[in-house]
């Protein structure tokens, strides 16, 4: 009876995972087609060649037979659907950071500024502690 419960839990978890994954897939596909004009038709020659270059790179350890290539292209197309908005969103986030931080702070200075601020804070705390231990 306990083993049967494990199977039921596994089925429920699989269904939940697939529902989340498929919902995200269709949302991403809608964004891709509507806002970024992504071509998702596998049968067109241009799209097929681009996918071919990417799948030959990613699955360099597999032999290049015809049916294997078709499956690889489907996987790479799915990965592109998931990854397109993420990539463009990352570029947009970098642009937003540059715009908001202005001319004074470029991206390469963010870590340096953080470290400097931390060092100033530490120094201030140390001075307070010295003052405290001197007079009490």
């Amino acid at each position, binding site marked *: 009876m306990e*083993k049967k419960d494990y199977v039921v839990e596994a089925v429920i*978890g699989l269904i939940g995972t697939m529902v989340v*994954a498929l919902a995200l897939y269709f949302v991403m596909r809608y964004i891709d087609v509507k806002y970024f004009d992504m071509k998702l038709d596998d049968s067109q020659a241009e799209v097929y060649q681009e996918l071919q270059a*990417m799948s*030959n790179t990613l699955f360099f350890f597999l032999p290049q037979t015809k049916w294997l290539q078709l499956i690889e292209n489907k996987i790479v197309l*799915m990965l592109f659907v998931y990854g397109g908005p993420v*990539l463009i969103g990352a570029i947009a986030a970098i642009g937003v950071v540059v715009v908001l931080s202005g001319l004074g702070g470029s991206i390469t200075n963010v870590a340096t500024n953080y470290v400097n601020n931390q060092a100033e804070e530490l120094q201030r705390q140390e001075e307070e502690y010295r003052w405290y231990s001197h007079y009490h």
Partner: protein
Amino acid sequence: METMIKNFKTGFTLAILITCVQAYAIYTYGSAITDGHPIGYTLLYSVMFFLGWFMLGSVVTGFVRLIVSLISMLLTR
């Protein structure tokens, strides 16, 4: 619900591992894609597929978990 969270955790680990292998693959064998571009192009292509591998790995982990539980149920009957 707990099994779903376990699936997503395992999928996240798988996605990190696959992203590392994929960055090596694009850096070494990806001259058809990254030819004539700076190194940031390679890095962006490596990070771009992370969400896809995350979801794919979660679903595959769910299938493997189901198969393992079925086998254990059949063996201990």
